[in-house]
């Protein structure tokens, strides 16, 4: 057997081009699965570990103001293990060298510094001195984005005047792994930061001595979250609670959970399909490679080897190729998994991003590909050993060809004999042509799936910020103000237009379904905040009734004409049944809208405004921000361009990595298919091509016959692949719709063109390599092989 093993190694060395491309296809399939599943697993592990270590609370509630003496009652609620009372306020910040005013969420620290629940992870510096009221810990993302380090100072607008705060440390919190402010469509570390300050400092600044306005609760094991929430609401509603909620509605956790869920969805859909494609290609290509060794197999049998020995020989052959691919794929997959996991640091502020790869993932990926290879080897070898050696040693009888149906169809007289050879070879072996087409076609969706994210994000931004949310900045007031504030804002330097809005937290209920969200009252004449229908046409605000985003409608099971119960979560807590006037199309968030006058009637208030959308002159932005910082009762200003820019910066690198990986995989697949198809065709038909050369055909003419077949197959594959790409994108989008986002199934023609170009380039590259081999056909020895 030693000699046979030498043959094995030499065969592998001789076919190195094919061996390499096949192993690469396997590697890509394995790598995709390993990378995606390990990223999902690592994210989940990192999240869970952090939540556990930091005692992330289970239930949260915000309220207006309640006496601290309520603590024993809260702790006595059955099922509550621990209660943490806090003071939480949002304030406009003034950061050196930053013109647009960011929002700081100020959270009180207990006297001991470290809270019992939602424990902080100190990254840098030290804890604030409980006696020094002007010391603060800063959240890491904000500190980095605004260039603040321990030792730096900033100012916070507290009760109408700016107070100086000294940064003494940088920290992370499980509550702000994903740092986003409710109402903002995008996270933005430059515009939103967390400041932890000593309890007494915050109590003094906001007149909250002996009081609190925020609760975090840890549940006892086995406790019912629902009952605890009910009990909390009962105790806290009189104090202006907006209603207690569980982790599922905690904003940061909801985003993190969403992202992990998306990663799980991605990991369990695309890579398995990808692996299946790789296994399929492996199976067919290896089968053809072995079938092409027909004469060698016969010779081995003639020498006295039995079928088992021959089979073992070829099993070794395919196993070596496949194992090389699996090993390479596992390494590549782990590397990519680490890269993708590390990329999440851009979004998720976790103290430690762990990486884990589970053995079963490797075993699954390896098992599937190895099984495909073994099956290919066995069926191909069986096909040959069934023949008597003498028969197998003779070249196969000329294939029976027929006039192709295409010729009969339109009697292609204009087709040259060469053209007919091409046509009959394709039609005469339909399964082979189909396989090649399928393989090439599959490369297209893979590339498009990578490219499409950028298109979708561009589209979302264009729709959300170009058509719906058209203001440049959003000003929120500390409490509802009357219409005069809007007129005053209009006089601020650089403000082109102002539109006041009334936003109120509500719980919407239809039957047994309910959802907590914001109800936004808009002016029917407004231009800065528009509502669109499914065709992106503006919808006029109805004088009566409420408009729901289509996903909110779906969530509540409500359609136009149904009745929805609105429970206002502030002020007098009005509850009223209101008809659903229609659905609006929005890609981000799940909100409800009303005509502001109808909303005011519902709330029984005058011309109150809680926020205002501003259109600004970009050239005077610095001046505008400086004046807004001084504006009374403005709690926060969020500036769209800044949020957009930082969002694009972080996603772009993320999407680029993802797209790059998928495109590289698609090219490997396309090369693997085209190159191997051409090489096998060349091996089978070298004799025919050499005959043509002897008859006087030039290298170019001969190459054209072989490569024209491939060209036709590529041309047939491209429309199929593009259609497939479109279907894949639609399916993916369907599966990825989350509460926060609905990714639109938008693929720009440019992306289709790029994907096609990548595949054509891969095919051309393979064709060039094969052309080189045709040019070096040794006519004499090729013709001699039959002697």
């Amino acid at each position, binding site marked *: 057997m030693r000699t046979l093993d030498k043959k094995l190694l030499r065969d592998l060395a001789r076919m190195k081009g094919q061996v390499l491309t096949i192993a690469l296809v396997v590697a890509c399939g394995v790598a995709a699965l390993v990378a995606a599943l390990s990223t999902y697993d690592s994210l989940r592990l990192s999240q869970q570990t952090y939540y556990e270590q930091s005692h992330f609370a289970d239930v949260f509630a915000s309220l207006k103001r309640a006496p601290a003496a309520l603590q024993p009652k809260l702790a006595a609620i059955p099922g509550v293990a621990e209660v943490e009372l806090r003071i939480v306020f949002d304030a406009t910040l003034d950061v050196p060298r930053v013109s647009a005013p960011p929002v700081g969420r100020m959270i009180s620290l207990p006297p001991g510094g470290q809270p019992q629940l939602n424990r902080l992870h100190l990254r840098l510096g030290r804890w604030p001195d409980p006696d020094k009221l002007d010391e603060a810990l800063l959240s890491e993302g904000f500190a980095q984005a605004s260039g603040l380090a321990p030792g730096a100072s900033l100012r916070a607008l507290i009760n109408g005047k700016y107070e100086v705060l000294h940064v003494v440390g940088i920290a992370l919190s499980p509550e702000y792994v994903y740092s986003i402010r409710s109402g903002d469509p995008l996270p933005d570390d430059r515009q939103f930061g967390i400041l932890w300050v000593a309890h007494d400092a915050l109590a003094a600044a906001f007149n909250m001595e002996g009081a609190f306005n925020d609760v975090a609760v840890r549940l006892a094991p086995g406790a019912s979250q629902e009952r605890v929430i009910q009990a909390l609401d009962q105790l806290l509603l009189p104090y202006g609670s907006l209603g207690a909620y569980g982790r599922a509605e905690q904003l940061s956790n909801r985003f993190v959970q969403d992202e992990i869920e998306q990663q799980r969805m991605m990991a369990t859909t695309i890579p398995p399909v990808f692996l299946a494609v790789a296994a399929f290609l492996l199976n067919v290509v290896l089968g053809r490679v072995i079938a092409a060794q027909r004469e060698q197999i016969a010779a081995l049998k003639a020498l006295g080897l039995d079928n088992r020995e021959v089979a073992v020989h070829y099993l070794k052959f395919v196993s070596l190729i496949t194992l090389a691919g699996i090993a390479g794929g596992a390494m590549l997959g782990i590397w990519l998994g680490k890269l993708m996991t590390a990329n999440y640091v851009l979004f998720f502020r976790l103290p430690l991003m762990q990486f884990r790869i589970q053995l079963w993932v490797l075993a699954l990926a390896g098992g599937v590909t190895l099984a495909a290879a073994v099956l290919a080897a066995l069926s191909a070898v069986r096909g040959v050993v069934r023949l008597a050696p003498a028969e197998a040693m003779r*070249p196969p*009888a*000329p*294939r*029976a*060809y*027929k*006039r192709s149906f295409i010729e009969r169809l339109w009697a292609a007289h204009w087709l*040259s*004999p*060469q053209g*007919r*050879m091409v046509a*009959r*070879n394709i039609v*005469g072996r339909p399964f082979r042509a189909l396989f090649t087409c399928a393989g090439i076609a599959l490369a297209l969706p893979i590339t498009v799936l990578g490219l499409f994210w950028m298109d979708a994000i561009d589209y979302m931004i264009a729709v959300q910020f170009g058509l719906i949310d058209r203001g440049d900045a959003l000003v929120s007031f500390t409490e509802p103000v009357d219409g005069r504030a809007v007129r005053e804002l209009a006089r601020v330097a650089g403000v082109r237009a102002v539109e006041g809005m009334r936003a109120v937290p509500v719980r919407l209920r239809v039957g047994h379904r309910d959802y907590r969200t914001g109800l936004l009252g808009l002016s029917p004449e407004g231009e800065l905040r528009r509502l669109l229908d499914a065709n992106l046409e503006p919808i006029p605000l109805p004088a009566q009734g409420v408009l729901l985003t289509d996903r909110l409608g779906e969530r509540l099971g409500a359609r136009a004409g149904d009745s929805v119960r609105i429970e206002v979560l502030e002020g007098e807590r009005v509850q009223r049944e209101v008809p659903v006037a229609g659905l609006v199309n929005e890609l981000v968030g799940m909100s409800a809208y009303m005509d502001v006058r109808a909303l005011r009637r519902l709330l029984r208030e005058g011309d109150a405004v809680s926020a205002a959308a501003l259109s600004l002159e970009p050239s005077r932005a610095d001046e505008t921000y400086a004046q807004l910082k001084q504006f009374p009762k403005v709690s926060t200003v969020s500036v769209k361009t800044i949020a957009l820019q930082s969002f694009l910066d972080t996603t772009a690198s993320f999407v680029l990595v993802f797209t790059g990986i998928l495109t590289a995989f698609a090219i490997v697949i396309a090369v693997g298919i085209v190159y191997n198809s051409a090489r096998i065709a060349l091996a089978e038909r070298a*004799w*025919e091509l050499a*005959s*043509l*050369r*002897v*008859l*006087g*055909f*030039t*290298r170019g003419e001969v190459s054209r016959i072989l490569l024209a077949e491939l060209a036709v197959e590529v041309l047939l594959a491209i429309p199929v692949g593009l259609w497939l790409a479109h279907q894949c994108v639609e399916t993916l989008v369907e599966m990825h719709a989350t509460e926060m986002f609905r990714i639109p199934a938008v693929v720009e023609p440019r992306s289709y063109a790029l994907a096609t170009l990548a595949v054509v380039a891969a095919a051309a590259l393979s064709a060039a390599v094969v052309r080189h081999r045709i040019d070096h056909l040794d*006519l*004499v020895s090729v*013709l*001699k092989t*039959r*002697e």
Partner: protein
Amino acid sequence: MGPVVFSARALTKTYRMGEVEVPALRSIDLEIWQGEFVVLLGPSGSGKSTLLNILGGLDTPTSGTAFWREHNLVTADESELTRYRREHVGFVFQFYNLIPSLTVRENVVLVTELADDPMDADEALTLVGLANRLDHFPSQLSGGEQQRVAIARAIAKRPECLLCDEPTGALDYATGKLVLEVIARVNRELATTVVVITHNAVIAGMADRVIRLADGRIASTEVNAKRLSPDELAW
């Protein structure tokens, strides 16, 4: 006897097999006249195929000179050799080398499209007695029929010479004779120079001249006083 069409002087071909040099032709001098029917006889490894390949522009010699009329076959590059084969040479091989995906007629048309003044494909096929099988594919033909298609394909472009490498090697006795008859007819009616390689000495009876090769050298040359017709041959 017509003018000399092929002439070789000190023609040598050495194959390099790894580190060993294997001489295939050792300094051959040879002239072939227009319209002549030459049979090259010799055992395996005698160099007859190498000689035929050089003559047909499939291979180039290591040293010496070889001319087809004014064409220098030694200095010609790849594209000149391709043009030479295209314009002057018709090949017939032991295993026919037909294109399986083309019909009988199309196999011939394939070649006539390359030539300046070709025969009509049907005419060439009539000449080899296959006028009734024009639309068949190679897989539907017997070996002898396939070989006759190969001959029709070779002569359809009206080559000046027809080179046949063991044309009856894969055929039975009766079919072989039929094929030889076609070759003789091409030589006779079209005045095509014919060179046939065989190790079947009986076929030599058909030739004007029989050249025996052994060990890369011309061992003997004999001129047949009377050429036999194929049906007079028996083996």
